[in-house]
C-alpha cells in the first residue's frame, strides 16, 4: 500500500510528545483528542464511506463504556478487560440493530439510530439493579499519571487507522462507497447491499465501543447521561467528522483536535461558556454552508480562497 510514510511520521511525532514533559492538562487534551479521533474514524466508516448517517453512535460508545464498567462491578474483573468484553457485546448489538434499521433509508435511518441511542440510555438509567442507574459506576483508575493512558489510546487509534485504511482500499471499501452513491445501482451490480451495510455498521460499532471502554478506564466514572448522551457523544462524533472531512482519511483526526480544543476554549469563556453546545450548533451550520466536505475534503477550495485574499489587489 502506498503512502505509509505520512501516518508513520505522525505516529512517531505523537509517540514522542510525552517525552517533552507536557503538563497533565495538555496531556488530557491530547488523550481526549485521540479518543475522539478513534470514535470519528469509526463513525466515518459507516457515515462517511458507506453513507449511512448515524445519530446513535452513543449506543455503541455507551455499550463499550458499560462493558468495562459492568465486568468490574459484577465480576470484579479489571475494567481493562472491557476492551475484549466490549467487542462481542457491541457487535451483537450492532447486528441486531442493523437487521432493523438498515432496512430504512435516508432520514428514516437517521431517526431510527437516534431513537436507539436514546432507548439504550433510558434502559441503562432504569435497570438500576444491573447498572446502578443514574448513580453511575465508579472504578479505581489504574494510574494517576496520564502517560500510560496516552499510549494506550494512541495504540488503539493507530490500530483503527490501519483497519479503516485496509478496508477503504479493499473490495469492502469500494462497495461501501458504491452503496453511498446509489444503492439501487450497487444492488444491480451484484453488491449485497444489506450485507455490506451490516459489515460497515458492525466494524464501526466495535471501534466506537473500544473508545467507550477506554473512556471508562480513563475517566474512572460513567453514568448513562454521559456515555449514552445524544448531544455529547452521538452529535459530537458527527461534528468531529463533519469539521475534519467526511469520507477522508485524516478528517476525523483533524476534526477531533479542533473540536476538543474548541470545546475547552469556549467553556473557559465567561458568560457564553455555558452555551458551548449552542456555539457548536452555530459552527456546524457554518461548516455545512461553507465547507460541506470539511477542512480536509474542502482543502483545495479553502486554499484558493485564502490565497486570493492574501494576494495584493
Amino acid at each position, binding site marked *: 500500500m502506498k503512502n505509509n510514510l505520512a501516518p508513520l511520521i505522525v505516529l512517531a511525532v505523537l509517540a514522542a510528545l510525552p517525552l517533552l514533559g507536557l503538563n497533565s492538562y495538555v496531556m488530557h487534551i491530547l488523550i481526549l483528542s485521540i479518543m475522539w479521533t478513534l470514535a470519528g474514524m469509526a463513525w466515518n466508516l459507516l457515515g462517511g464511506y458507506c453513507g449511512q448517517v448515524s445519530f446513535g453512535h452513543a449506543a455503541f460508545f455507551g455499550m463499550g463504556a458499560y462493558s468495562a464498567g459492568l465486568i468490574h462491578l459484577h465480576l470484579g474483573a479489571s475494567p481493562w478487560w472491557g476492551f475484549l468484553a466490549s467487542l462481542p457485546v457491541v457487535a451483537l448489538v450492532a447486528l441486531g440493530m442493523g437487521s432493523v434499521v438498515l432496512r430504512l433509508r435516508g432520514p428514516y435511518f437517521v431517526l431510527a439510530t437516534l431513537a436507539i441511542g436514546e432507548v439504550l440510555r433510558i434502559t441503562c438509567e432504569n435497570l438500576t439493579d444491573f447498572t446502578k442507574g443514574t448513580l453511575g459506576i465508579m472504578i479505581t483508575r489504574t494510574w494517576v499519571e496520564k502517560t500510560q493512558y496516552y499510549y494506550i489510546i494512541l495504540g488503539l487509534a493507530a490500530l483503527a487507522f490501519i483497519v479503516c485504511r485496509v478496508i477503504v482500499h479493499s*473490495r469492502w471499501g469500494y*462497495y461501501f*462507497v458504491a452503496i453511498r452513491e*446509489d444503492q439501487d445501482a450497487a*444492488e*444491480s*451490480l*451484484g*453488491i449485497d447491499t444489506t450485507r455490506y451495510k451490516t459489515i460497515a455498521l458492525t466494524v464501526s460499532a466495535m471501534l466506537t465501543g473500544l473508545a467507550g471502554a477506554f473512556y471508562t478506564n480513563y475517566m474512572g466514572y460513567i453514568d448513562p447521561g454521559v456515555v449514552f448522551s445524544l448531544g455529547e457523544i452521538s452529535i459530537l462524533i458527527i461534528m468531529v467528522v463533519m469539521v475534519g472531512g467526511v469520507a477522508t482519511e485524516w478528517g476525523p483526526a483533524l476534526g477531533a483536535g479542533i473540536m476538543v480544543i474548541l470545546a475547552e476554549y469556549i467553556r473557559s469563556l465567561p458568560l457564553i461558556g455555558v452555551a458551548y453546545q449552542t456555539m457548536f450548533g452555530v459552527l456546524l451550520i457554518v461548516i455545512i454552508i461553507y465547507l460541506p466536505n470539511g477542512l480536509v475534503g474542502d482543502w483545495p477550495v479553502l486554499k484558493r480562497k485564502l490565497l486570493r485574499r492574501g494576494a495584493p489587489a
Partner: protein
Amino acid sequence: MSMLEIRKLSMFFGGLAALHDVNFDVRQGEILALIGPNGAGKTTLFNCVNGFYNPSEGQVLFKGKPITGLKPHKVCNLGIARTFQVVKPLSRMSVFDNVLASAFLRNPTRKGAEDVADEVLHFTGLWDDRDQLSKGLPLGKRKRLEIARALATQPEFLLLDESFAGLNPAELDVSIDIIRGIKQQGITVMIIEHHMKVIMAISDRIVVLNFGQKIAEGTPAEISANRQVVEAYLGEEHGA
C-alpha cells in the same frame, strides 16, 4: 438454446397491468430488441428480470432455472447485468473506480479487478476519462459508463435500457460498435431502444410490447412489415 425464458409474466400495480401474460425467449448469443411506445412495460419487464420487482404472476427462467423473486444482487451474481435508462453513475467516484467496484464481483483481489476494469474501459473507449469524476462526464459517456460497469461484472446476459437515447450521430456509431463487440464476446443482449435505425442495424430479433402485452415477435424485416406494429408504434413511414 434459450438463455432467458419469459413465461406468462404479469405485473400489476393496483389495477393497472403493466405487463400481462407476456411470453418469449431470448436465445443464446443473440441481440433481442424490446420495442414499443412509452408505458408499454419495457422497463417493468427489465425490473422483473433483474429482481427489482417480484412479478405478480409468471416466471423468468435463466438457463432453465427460475430466477423470479431473487434479489438483484443474486441475479447479477448468476450472470445477468443491467444498465439504467436514467443513468445512475456513482457520482463522486472516478470512472475507473465505478468500473472497479463492479469488477470486484468476480475478482475479489484488487489486482484481478483492476485488470478487468482496464480491459472494459479500453473496450468501451472510456480509458482516457478514467480519472474523471463520473458526474463530470457528458451524457453520451455516462451512458457508456453504464455499459462498462455492467460489463465489469462479467455477465453472460446483458440488459440495456435505452443506452442510445440522447446520443449524437457520432456517439451512436461508437455505441453500435460496442454492442456488436459485446455480441462477439458471446454475451447475449436484450436491449430496450426507441432509435429504429439502431434497432434495425443490430438486432437479430425484435419483440414488440404495447399496453403490457406482446403484440409481435420476429426478425427486423418481419416486424417492419407487421401491420399491427406499424399502427401501434412505428407509424407509416417506417412501415414502407
